[in-house]
């Protein structure tokens, strides 16, 4: 951002309000880094932490429901826990975990050295972290959110003085989600610009790895889904705090307006969560089947189709609200329609595995588990598209079974599989395969024990969001099984975390290409150097890494090319091939940390700017002019300092 006149007059004396952070390694570097890989790891670690928190909340819920008339939790505590469980898993675990993968992988997959906006990238992380802390701080500041993760009005919008929802929970929730939304939009902008603008030469759109494609669709969905919910939550906040009547039916308002605005965000949100998972599966399956993805174009276009159709189905969350036959029919049909591109993808994945030389590694198992469980969840989803059937299932455990099959059995399985697959990329070490397979089977067992019986009790009418049920309704045994399943699931997650920690410390060295992989990120050394690519790669084909390793002879047999990637035949190469992993030759001026490539410099300002936004958030809760002033000063300081600080420090 340095202007030319300054560069001429004062070569490197750009005035900076704080001394520029220099550290690129060590503990403190994580606070100021702008390296997309480090930011990705920060997102991932934080999201896993929130996964454990949300999981603990789920365990408490299941413990309460283990027996009829449970006494572990009060009704109020139960309300808080299911609200925070949903909020945590969607906003603080699912979305950030996808952004973690995206951050780490997208630049590597498109052959870029960094994202388009490294500092805005870091800003997104800090807003996410502070937003999460903000929402959780409500536990200590007068009560956590308790109106459900969807926060329906007029329950959440009744004025604080009316005392319908005790405590400040709903305010923390509304402001917190708006804050997280700001973070998501910044990260979406960054992804869009990075993917559209920063691809390596030859990396045309239709050569991009499918994960990157899905992140692009996801980023557009995020960009357009966040504003409606921001508007809705602003209205909720004003209703609660400033006496507006947006959702007050007595004044003629329509509380359904909130539901429309919320689900106009909420349903694309479902695809924001699942599309990155689908992308991961589309990367992992071909590698362990030793076949290219079956029908690349179809997978890409069905992903885009889901992205478009996802905007036309929101009212299927509202079938029980009396929308009238025309709307019910339209949204029922559009919901059935969106099952088509989703089903197409499932057949593409099956076609990829079909006839391949399949290796059942842990990553592959998790992705196959994804296909099976996501299909079950998808099928129960189609049942919801049938309006009469949906009115029966609304607000029962059947719905819970459905979306956990899609989001846990689908999304989380894909994410865990992705971690097994890309762990060597991030650390240079392999995760323990044996423990990984144990984790998989424990997770499959626990998951299905927990959520399959919910289909049955749901169809029998067991209501959601209710802290107790009577005995003698035939729900005692299924609920006990579900609770046992939940503890098995917790054990599986524990195994996974142990595996992560142990493998990080003592895992086997992976070499550069442990899986004989296909996409561009595997042409870089493991772990990836700060500058990603010593030379910006020139891409000549889809599955670039594969085509650099293999060619076909005249008979169509696969022939290993002599040079490049890992050693021929063996899966594990121990030393990077010289010329690939060694210091790059371009610009041998020795500047910029010895590797001659100028990377963006670390910065304090993303953190400071996010802290200013955090001050605004608390100011909104406490109506504090003082905090508001502090926030404004901090934000202005950070913005000006950011503007005046060059993105990349002159060498």
């Amino acid at each position, binding site marked *: 951002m340095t202007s030319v006149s300054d560069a001429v007059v004062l070569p490197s004396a750009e005035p900076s309000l704080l001394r520029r952070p220099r550290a690129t390694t060590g503990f403190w570097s994580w606070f100021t880094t702008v390296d997309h890989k480090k930011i990705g790891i920060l997102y991932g670690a934080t999201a896993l932490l929130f996964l454990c928190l949300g999981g603990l909340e789920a365990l408490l819920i299941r413990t309460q429901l283990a027996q009829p008339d449970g006494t572990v939790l009060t009704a109020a505590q139960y309300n808080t826990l299911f609200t925070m469980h949903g909020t945590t898993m969607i906003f603080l675990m699912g979305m950030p975990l996808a952004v973690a993968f995206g951050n780490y992988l997208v630049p590597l997959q498109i052959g870029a050295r960094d994202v388009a906006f490294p500092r805005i990238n870091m800003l997104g992380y800090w807003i996410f972290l502070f937003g999460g802390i903000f929402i959780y701080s409500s536990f200590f500041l007068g009560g956590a959110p308790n109106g459900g993760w969807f926060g329906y009005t007029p329950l959440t919008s009744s004025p604080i003085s009316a005392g319908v929802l005790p405590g400040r929970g709903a305010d923390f929730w509304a402001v917190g989600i708006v804050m997280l939304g700001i973070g998501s939009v910044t990260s979406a*902008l960054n992804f*869009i610009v990075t993917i*559209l*603008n920063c*691809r390596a030469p030859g990396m045309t759109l239709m050569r991009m790895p499918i994960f990157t494609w899905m992140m692009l669709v996801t980023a557009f969905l995020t960009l*357009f889904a966040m504003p*409606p919910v921001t508007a809705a939550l602003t*209205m909720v906040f004003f209703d609660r705090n400033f006496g*507006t009547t947006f959702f007050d039916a007595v004044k003629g*308002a329509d509380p359904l307006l909130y539901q429309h605005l919320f689900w106009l965000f909420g349903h694309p949100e479902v695809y924001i969560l699942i599309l990155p998972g689908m992308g991961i599966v589309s990367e992992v399956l071909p590698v362990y089947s030793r076949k290219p993805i079956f029908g690349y174009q179809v997978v890409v276009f069905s992903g885009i189709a889901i992205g478009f159709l996802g905007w036309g189905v929101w009212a299927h969350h509202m079938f029980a609200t009396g929308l009238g036959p025309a709307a019910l029919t339209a949204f029922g049909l559009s919901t059935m329609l969106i099952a088509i591109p989703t089903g197409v993808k499932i057949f593409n994945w099956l076609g990829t595995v079909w006839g391949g030389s399949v290796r059942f590694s842990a990553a592959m198992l998790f992705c196959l588990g994804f296909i099976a469980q996501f299909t079950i969840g998808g099928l129960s989803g189609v049942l919801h598209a049938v309006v009469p059937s949906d009115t029966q299932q609304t607000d029962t455990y059947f719905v819970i079974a459905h979306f956990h099959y899609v989001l846990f059995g689908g999304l989380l399985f894909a994410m865990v599989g992705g971690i097994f697959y890309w762990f060597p990329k991030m650390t240079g070490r392999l995760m323990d395969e044996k423990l990984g397979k144990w984790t998989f089977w424990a997770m499959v067992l626990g998951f299905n024990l927990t959520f399959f019986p919910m289909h049955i009790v749901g169809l029998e009418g067991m209501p959601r969001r209710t802290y107790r049920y009577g005995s003698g309704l035939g729900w005692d045994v299924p609920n006990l099984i579900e609770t046992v399943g939940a503890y098995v699931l917790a054990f599986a997650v524990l195994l996974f975390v142990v595996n992560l920690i142990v493998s990080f410390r003592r895992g086997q060295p992976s070499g550069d290409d442990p899986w004989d992989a296909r996409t561009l990120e595997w042409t870089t050394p493991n772990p990836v150097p700060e500058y990603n690519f010593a030379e910006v790669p020139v891409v000549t084909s889809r599955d670039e890494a594969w085509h650099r390793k293999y060619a076909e002879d005249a008979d169509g047999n696969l022939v290993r090319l002599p040079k490049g990637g890992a050693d021929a035949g063996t899966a594990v190469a121990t030393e990077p091939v010289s010329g690939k992993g060694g210091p790059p030759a371009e610009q041998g001026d020795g500047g910029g940390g010895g590797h001659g490539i100028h990377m963006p410099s670390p910065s304090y300002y993303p953190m400071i700017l996010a802290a200013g936004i955090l001050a605004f958030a608390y100011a909104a809760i406490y109506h504090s002019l003082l905090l508001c002033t502090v926030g404004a000063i901090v934000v202005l300081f950070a913005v000006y300092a950011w503007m005046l600080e060059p993105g990349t420090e002159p060498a």
Partner: protein
Amino acid sequence: MTTEIAVRTDEPEPSGTGLTNAKLAMWAFLASECLLFGAFISTFLLYRRRSEGLTPRDVYNIPFTSATSFILLMSSLTMVLALAAIQRGDHRRLRVWLIATCLFGLTFVAGQVFEFTEFYREGLKLSTNLFGSSFFVLTGIHGAHVTVGIIWLLSLWGLSSQGRLTKLDSEKVEIAGLYWHFVDVVWIVIFTVVYLIPQ
């Protein structure tokens, strides 16, 4: 000027879309903003007929708001002139037009403050009815956007006064201009939908 170009090292890199990163990001951000305003405008439209008590007809002063709207629209013209000036390398005129744009914007915001005060005196508050709620929140959020734009343009003026904004930084002015024009265009929609279309 030619020497400046010679030492310039950060030339725009080839990009996939032909737009620079910053400009593409601004376009995408504005697309997102469309949905934010869209949600508030839809809310206003939905509640227009449902509101009880004071109506727009009771409080609006159309000639006054037309005048401030005209001033806001004229600020887009001065914004264009500011961009043209920096692209020519005419820094003095750049600063003149930036200040003119800010003054027009400030006049609009001042008009809005006056209008809000008048409405309040006539009994229309946030909590009065659906019209009050949806009117104040929608136009208030627009006013906040104009205010952010004014601060942005003043910052550019400050940079230019210190000689930190060269001809090659014209894109910074262009991007601020994109935002400014967007806020103006949104006002055209709001003014039409909220003020002019009869009940």
